[in-house]
């Protein structure tokens, strides 16, 4: 959720490169003014984000443990850190779990969001208003309180989920500890992530659906198309750009999940629960191997860069096909 709001800017990426220059622009008499205006913001962004990003790359080539921390000086080891983590079976497990986790979470979020968006189209006005307001409330709930409330719902002793599952006849969940078994633990984490992601995705998709031309749907129905055919051959192609944007953004968010694992497991997750960002954090701030942690973070950034690049390129390609 915290990142959800930032998306407007990200989505706008779609347009940047294609955006025609504003028709009329003031031509500055003194050419320095525009630079003076962006200078403070540029300084902050470059200094506080750009520099650390470069430093992350540099750190990944350093041996940087506790001793180095006190000396403020790492020791250059080339690609040794990458060799170490890439040959570490634990890191393989971490990568595998992160990828599987991302695929499942993105898939489920998109599935439920599409379902709710389609539902929003079909309900009466009152229900639509209620449902959208509900979604906005969930969307607005900050992530840390959200994690705490799910922690309470899944509490092994007095958690309402165990009671509900038991009384709905799903088996005996009295005093069931969800975090003994990592698969069940990850199920809880998935519930939290998907619940938090649905509102944004569903509202976006619904807003997209309202722009599907009515005439097309009516024409298809007159020609005898069944509802699923309308969905597959009209709705989906028209919503393709939006789907693509949402898929990419969800992937970017779900691949770097940290808070849900860290806070839910009381800041002491066992090794079974290490997603890539948890692994990187643990190596750095618990084991004090900042070099290895940085290498893991670089791997994460590299994978995300591929997704981001794919997303920007695909989107540009799509929009040029439309002949804009």
């Amino acid at each position, binding site marked *: 959720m915290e990142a959800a709001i930032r998306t407007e800017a990200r989505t706008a990426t779609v347009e940047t490169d294609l955006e025609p220059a504003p028709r009329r622009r003031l031509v500055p008499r003194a050419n320095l003014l525009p630079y003076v205006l*962006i200078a403070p913001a540029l300084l902050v962004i470059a200094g506080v984000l750009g520099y650390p990003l470069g430093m992350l790359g540099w750190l990944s080539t350093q041996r940087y443990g506790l001793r180095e921390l006190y000396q403020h000086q790492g020791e250059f080891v080339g690609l040794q850190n990458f060799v170490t983590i890439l040959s570490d079976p634990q890191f393989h497990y971490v990568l595998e779990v992160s990828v599987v986790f991302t695929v499942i979470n993105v898939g489920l979020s998109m599935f439920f969001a599409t379902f709710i968006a389609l539902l929003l189209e079909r309900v009466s006005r009152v229900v639509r208003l209620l449902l959208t307001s509900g979604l906005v409330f969930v969307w607005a709930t900050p992530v840390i309180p959200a994690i*705490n409330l799910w922690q309470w719902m899944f509490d092994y002793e007095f958690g309402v989920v165990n009671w509900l599952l038991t009384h709905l006849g799903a088996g005996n969940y009295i005093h069931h500890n969800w975090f003994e078994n990592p698969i069940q633990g990850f199920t809880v984490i998935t519930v939290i992530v998907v619940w938090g992601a649905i509102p944004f995705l569903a509202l976006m998709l619904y807003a997209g659906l309202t722009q599907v031309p009515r005439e097309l749907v009516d024409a298809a129905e007159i020609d005898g198309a069944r509802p699923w055919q309308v969905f597959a051959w009209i709705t989906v192609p028209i919503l393709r750009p939006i789907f693509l944007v949402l898929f990419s953004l969800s992937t970017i968010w779900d691949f770097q999940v940290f808070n849900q694992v860290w806070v839910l497991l009381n800041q002491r997750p066992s090794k079974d629960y290490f997603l890539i960002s948890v692994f990187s954090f643990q190596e750095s701030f618990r084991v004090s191997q900042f070099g290895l942690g940085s290498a893991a973070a670089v791997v994460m950034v590299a994978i995300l860069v591929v997704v981001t690049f794919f997303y920007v390129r695909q989107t540009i390609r799509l929009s040029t096909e439309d002949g804009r």
Partner: protein
Amino acid sequence: MRRSIAARTFFDGVGILVLVVMMFPIYWMISTALKPGKEILALNPVWIPSAPTFDNFRTAMNVPYFWNDVVNSLVVVLTVVVVSIALAFLAAVSVARFGFRGRTAFIVMIIAVQMVPLNALVIPIYLLLNAVGQVDSLLGVIAYYLAFVLPFMIWTLRGFIANVPVDLEEAAMVDGASRVGAFMRIVFPLVAPGLIATGIFGFIQAWNEFIIAYVLLSSSSKQTLTIWLASFTTQHGTDWGGLMAGATLTALPVVILFLFVQRHIVGGLTAGAVKG
């Protein structure tokens, strides 16, 4: 598309079901916060608090450092909002109003920066601030949040400013206003909603942020509210009523502010994406 009454009732039913499932956790948080202890720790859940009480809120507020951390959060958030609005506004004017060499590069940079995963930057940030002795100071956190919210704010404000026709300004100047006067009287009022919306955005982001504050602020007296909340459980066992009250208190300002800007966010989003 006309639908039978039966179909509509069916869809409405499913819609209500979805609503209940999505909203239940939030209801459960608030109702737990309002329950006395024995209704919270009940083997059969008590669905509606029989005698709502504010005891849990009182407990939460009396947890050590609560007020202290509220103040920290406010200091951080308000500084970030004020400074970022000023910087973002200047940069947005530049991008929206002037053609200059490097403008496209700046825009691309702004967008690219937003894709950088926060979690990955924690390590170098910590080491950098550690080297200059700024770990455990609100200043480091503020600088970081500033850089984190600026790109989005510049981008959003740019849209607002670009939407004000240059001709309006020129007309004012023809009528005798100076360039600055025309800008302040014509453009500024039209852009004010954008400033409020982006300011609220900055507020929400800085208020909610966890990992940076968690790494940088180690002493209890320096922490922000999210850190206070995340460590609530580890004090002595879990006081669920107090925790839910704390969660409600932390979420409340954000939810209220969010409701103000929500329409703007969804609208802006889809306009961009579907057109593409």
